[in-house]
């Protein structure tokens, strides 16, 4: 997973805004539990992506709870598209060699 964290996190937000817990849930759900990581360590990466301008975040109030919601920026969408293309090319090449 190391080395692909940014792409994975950006991908979880492709469908729409999520709070931190939602990002982790989606990551676990989509990977069918494969990415088993200390959930608290996802936040530093989210902060980094935000500082890099790939995500933006704001506080919202849902059912009386204050939650920080993350959303992809335009730049983040571009980076995600680029990362997905690179990953597909890489995965295709590995598959061709391995299988």
């Amino acid at each position, binding site marked *: 997973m190391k080395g692909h964290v*940014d792409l994975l996190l950006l991908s979880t937000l492709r469908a729409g805004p999520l*709070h*931190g*817990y939602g990002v*982790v849930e989606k990551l676990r759900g989509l990977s069918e539990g494969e990415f088993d990581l*200390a*959930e*608290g*360590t996802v*936040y*530093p*990466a989210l*902060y*980094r992506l935000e*500082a890099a301008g790939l995500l933006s975040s704001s506080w919202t109030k849902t059912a009386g*709870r*204050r*939650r*920080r919601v993350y959303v992809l920026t335009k730049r983040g969408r571009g980076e995600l598209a680029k990362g997905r293309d690179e990953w597909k090319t890489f995965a295709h090449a590995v598959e061709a060699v391995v299988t």
Partner: protein
Amino acid sequence: MIDRYLEALDLELIAVRIPRRLRRRILAESEDHLRSDDGALDRFGAPAEVANAFAAELGARASRRAAGGAFVALGVAGAVYAFSFVGASFAGHPPPDTWPLLAQLAFVAVIVAPQVSFVAGSLALVRALRRREPVLPSAELTVINRRTGIALVFGLVTMVALGMLAFELRNGSASWWVAFTLAGVAVAAPLLVLAALPAAVAARLRPRVAGAPGDLFDDLGFGRTDPWRFARRVAIGLGLVVFLVAAVQGDPFDGALNGTAETLACLAGFAAFGRYLGLRR
């Protein structure tokens, strides 16, 4: 349980020196996460692990930004220095042996300090640009922060000394040179102080990430050899340049003296700062 966890996390965040405002946000988000389901506390990670992850990510970014900011501020100071230094040739100073003591001390600082500042600032930027990973070993961050700090301190010493020199020589020098130098110092010195703020924030963070720092050859990307051998070659090369420039201007004796001094100063700098600035291990 969750409250106790958050208290422990707060203490760990303080221990790695995360700024207060960011700490509040981290704690608020962590609380929201931990109250989202019954098992979240078990999956969140130990407080020390989470706090260290924040410090590691923030530390790498903060050190890189500080190095970049310092280089920009040093660029302005360098321009002031260069114009003032070149302008001094036309400013008609009184003979150096008649200068007040303060001016003579300032002159020595104006020659030595900018060289240290330029080398340290360039090295900080090079290391920051070469290490683009989101997380860097703590030892590597220390090297970048030290380089940035030394560059800024010596840059500030240069500007203060330059200002002192212009002030002390104001009666025997062209007024345009005095005015330009003092105005330039008045602009560049505050910029250096401003650039020191993010550098101080970066240096305060205390991530614990294993790994050794690089050395001079990691900065250069080529020519790995014994660091002292490399330093000797560079020092002799610089001394030769100083000698040749003076020889072309018709003063080879003075050039030989200054070239030797440059070589010795370069080697002394390497001995004094080499390990501290991560040039040799």
